[in-house]
């Protein structure tokens, strides 16, 4: 949908102001650092592949293999304790708080949940 100039500019200005906050800058740096580390990306990729395989098995009614389940829990623990991922996720929580305040302001002005309808 093509937005009118006024809305386009107001949305851009809000986005740029959010981008300039310390929370967003720190999150983007942390996300980049996690992406740049091959060990970290491989670990996350491995967890995702295993999760999808287990989810597909469950969806198709197959019994889940206990060894694979244990592997999944171990991998998940490794991902959680990876310092780059932990820092990225911690920063993301800060971003979410900031974004949620902005979304709440929009919702209170309009009386309609902006984030829910925009998804």
């Amino acid at each position, binding site marked *: *949908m*093509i*937005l*009118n100039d*006024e*809305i*386009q500019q*107001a*949305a*851009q*200005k*809000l*986005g*740029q*102001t*959010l*981008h*300039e*906050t310390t929370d*967003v800058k720190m*999150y*983007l740096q942390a996300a980049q650092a996690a992406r740049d580390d091959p060990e970290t990306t491989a670990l996350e990729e491995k967890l995702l592949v295993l999760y999808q395989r287990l989810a597909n098995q469950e969806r198709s009614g197959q019994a889940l293999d206990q060894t694979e389940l244990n592997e999944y829990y171990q991998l998940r623990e490794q991902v959680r304790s990876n310092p780059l991922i932990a820092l990225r996720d911690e920063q*993301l929580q800060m*971003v*979410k708080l*900031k*974004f*949620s*305040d*902005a*979304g*709440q*302001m*929009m*919702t209170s*002005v*309009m009386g*309609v949940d*902006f*984030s*829910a*309808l*925009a*998804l």
Partner: protein
Amino acid sequence: MVDIHLETELFPSVERSAENIGTLAGQLAKLLQQTDEFQELLRLARLVNLDPDVNRLIQQIRRRESAYGGNENGPTIEELQAELEALPAYQTYVKAENAARDLFQSVDQVISTSAGIDFAINARRQGCGCGG
């Protein structure tokens, strides 16, 4: 030793940033409120809320979905949903909601591109995670 000058400089700037985001979000919301899509959504939401058939079907669907209504005789949730979706008042409302959704999604895209990170999905209010 903390430089008192630095301290007073730092905190007002943090406050200004938060205040600024709130002001900009409020301004954007006011612009969205003035659009035809939003006004039409409000008008049709009011109408659909007054429609007795829509209300009856929504109540029946909710009762069916609740723990107590699952075993009742009568139409299934799918049948009730199909009946609801066939009502002209509901169809018109859904069309208006989709138009407003298109508008909001386009706005979200602009905010997200400028921010460098998805806005709406990260702006959703989060539950306590306690399963309640």
